[in-house]
């Protein structure tokens, strides 16, 4: 993707009218785990040159299997890296960060201003996302009071009004997290994440830990709140069903890179990359009888990724070139990008 010529890139704001820059622009982001143990250095390239943008009011989905690097990508996008994870290249720009610099160059004061007012987060495993020894009210104060001003009755009224959006009674404010059910806790975190009406909400596997009945409820709620608040949403989950249900655009990640990006509907109807095709084809459909085709081998070891296209050892369409060169994410149609030599214009 480093090779993508600038002219090939999608023009800014291709879809909707306003000539605003995207809420989030990620360019050629590289985030590696660098460790040295017993004198042996290891480098795991969990995110290796990823570019995409999230626009106003959109729900942007990111899919991939468990070791594809999507969780690492989120950490890097949210500037929440901890050693041994390091961002080694590329930029993450937010529209509201002054000076068009990357989030990773921002001062801690700038980041503190940005967090929750502009950029908020719904965590994977919200079961443990709330401090177990603090009442829910205190979490709201800790997270949002500095942006909404004041703590007294005015703040409380705002919180209570916002809780209604997620159909929670104001009684939850006096509860401790362990006194709430899983679904309620997840709704509390949704309310927390949207209270300041941020421009971008990042949601990491928001429904994975919940049971199936509650899942749909929570998804509906996320969408409703997103519409009402007007935030953009970056949603990451391995569950393609969730993407089909919720997202506007969808990117597929494999081995630390994006392999395909398209409007969700397009991607489900006509996936182009062999890996996306495999993912979509393996979704269960009612009444289907033919056995599923499985891929051989496992996901790549990102400490020693295969040369060339990282999918080539498992690819049914593999060519000699795939073993040597890395395919760039190339525009196939106005809103459809694919990284594969076998499809589209790169052959």
């Amino acid at each position, binding site marked *: 993707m480093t090779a993508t010529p600038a002219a090939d890139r999608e023009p800014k704001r291709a879809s909707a009218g306003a000539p605003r820059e995207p809420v989030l622009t990620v360019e050629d982001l590289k985030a590696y785990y660098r460790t040295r143990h017993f004198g042996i250095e290891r480098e795991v390239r969990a995110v290796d040159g990823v570019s995409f943008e999230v626009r106003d009011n959109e729900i942007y989905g990111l899919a991939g299997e468990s070791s594809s690097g999507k969780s690492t990508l989120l950490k890097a996008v*949210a500037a*929440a890296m*901890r050693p041994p994870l390091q961002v080694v290249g590329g930029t993450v720009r937010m529209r509201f960060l002054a000076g068009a610099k990357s989030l990773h160059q921002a001062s801690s004061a700038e*980041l*503190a*201003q*940005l*967090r*929750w007012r502009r950029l*908020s*987060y719904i*965590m994977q*495993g919200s079961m*443990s*996302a*709330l*401090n*177990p*020894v*603090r009442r829910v009210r*205190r979490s709201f104060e*800790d*997270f949002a009071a500095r942006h909404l001003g004041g703590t007294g009755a005015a703040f409380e009224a705002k919180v209570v009004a916002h809780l209604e959006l997620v159909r929670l009674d104001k009684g939850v404010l006096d509860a*401790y997290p*362990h*006194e709430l059910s899983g679904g309620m806790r997840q709704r509390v975190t949704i309310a*927390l994440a949207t209270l300041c009406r941020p421009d971008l909400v990042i949601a990491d596997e928001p429904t994975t830990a919940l049971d199936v009945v509650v899942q749909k409820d929570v998804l509906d709620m996320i969408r409703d709140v997103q519409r009402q608040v007007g935030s953009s949403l970056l949603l990451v989950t391995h569950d393609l069903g969730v993407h089909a249900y919720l997202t506007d655009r969808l990117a597929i990640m494999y081995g630390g890179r994006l392999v395909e990006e398209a409007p969700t509907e397009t991607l489900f109807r006509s996936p182009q990359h062999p890996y996306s095709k495999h993912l979509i084809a393996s979704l269960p459909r009612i009444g289907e009888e033919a056995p599923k085709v499985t891929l051989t081998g496992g996901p790549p070891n990102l400490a020693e990724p295969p040369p060339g296209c990282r999918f080539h050892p498992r690819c049914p369409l593999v060519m000699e070139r795939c073993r040597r060169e890395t395919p760039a994410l190339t525009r196939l149609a106005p809103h459809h990008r694919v990284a594969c030599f076998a499809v589209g214009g790169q052959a």
Partner: protein
Amino acid sequence: MRFYATYLAQRLGQFLLVVFIGINLTYLITHLTPIDPVEQSIAAVTSFGNTSPEAIGAMRQSLRELYGLTGAPHEQYLAFWRRIATADFGPSLSAFPTPVSTLIARALPWTIGLLATATLLTWVLGNLLGGLAGYYQNKTSLKVLAIIAMGLHPVPYYIVAFVLLVTFGYLWPLLPIAGGKAMNLGDQLSLEIVLSILKHSILPALSLLLVGLGGWFLGMRSLVSNIVSEDYVVYAELAGVDHRRILTSYVMRNALLPQVTGLALSLGAIFNGAIITEQVFGYPGVGSLLVSGVYAGDYGLVLGVATVSIIGVSTAVLIIDLLYPLLDPRVRTG
């Protein structure tokens, strides 16, 4: 609320069990003796002369009951418990005819005062520094502190107390190294006495602190460095919550819970340390009493101190257990 009640019942049950098993242990140990301890003790007292026959008779009676030598086995056992329950360990052999219970009652405030102050101070300081060291892992001063803690923590109380005694008693005589207060001050409460008591408690307290600090420091440091990667801490950081707030209300607040449990678990060991520290500095508490009891062959005194120690330590454990729900809402309202 029912959860809380179950918890309380459990802790109370454990308390009773500790006292029961502990005191039975002392009874069992007593029965291991190969000689007739009573007549031996009586002989030791009468050799000093001028003791009334009545006093000797009372002494023989209480020793026989404490050693469990009167009547059938079950009567022996019951007589022993009756003595324990009424805190009646008979007259002391070494301070005849002062009752053992009076000696213990005189010594107990010294031990409780020293131990409670030193333990709380150690615990608070160790947790505070350990919490900072776990959160700011790259601060050099805190790393140095960790190395010092690692060097001091494994050394037994006796050695540290001894080194302090040598340092401040012989090499650099700065502080009093013996007793609980200056001898010439009398018993009237005055500022002078309070200052003297404080001054005399510095070295014993310091040796308890030096040994104890490392344990809390290292424990807290490792708890904190695990808790910083808990979801709720990461989430608060993502939300841009103030770092001091995260350190206190999120990280340390949660790390405190196992440290409170740890305090309850280590009270027994801390008490062991206090006994030997008292002995080294001649501090007038129950530790010194215990050791002098052994030297004087005073069985009632040794048994009395052992019993009071068991009950005292388990009561302190019970108090901590009862306070714990105030810190952990999951026990309070689970």
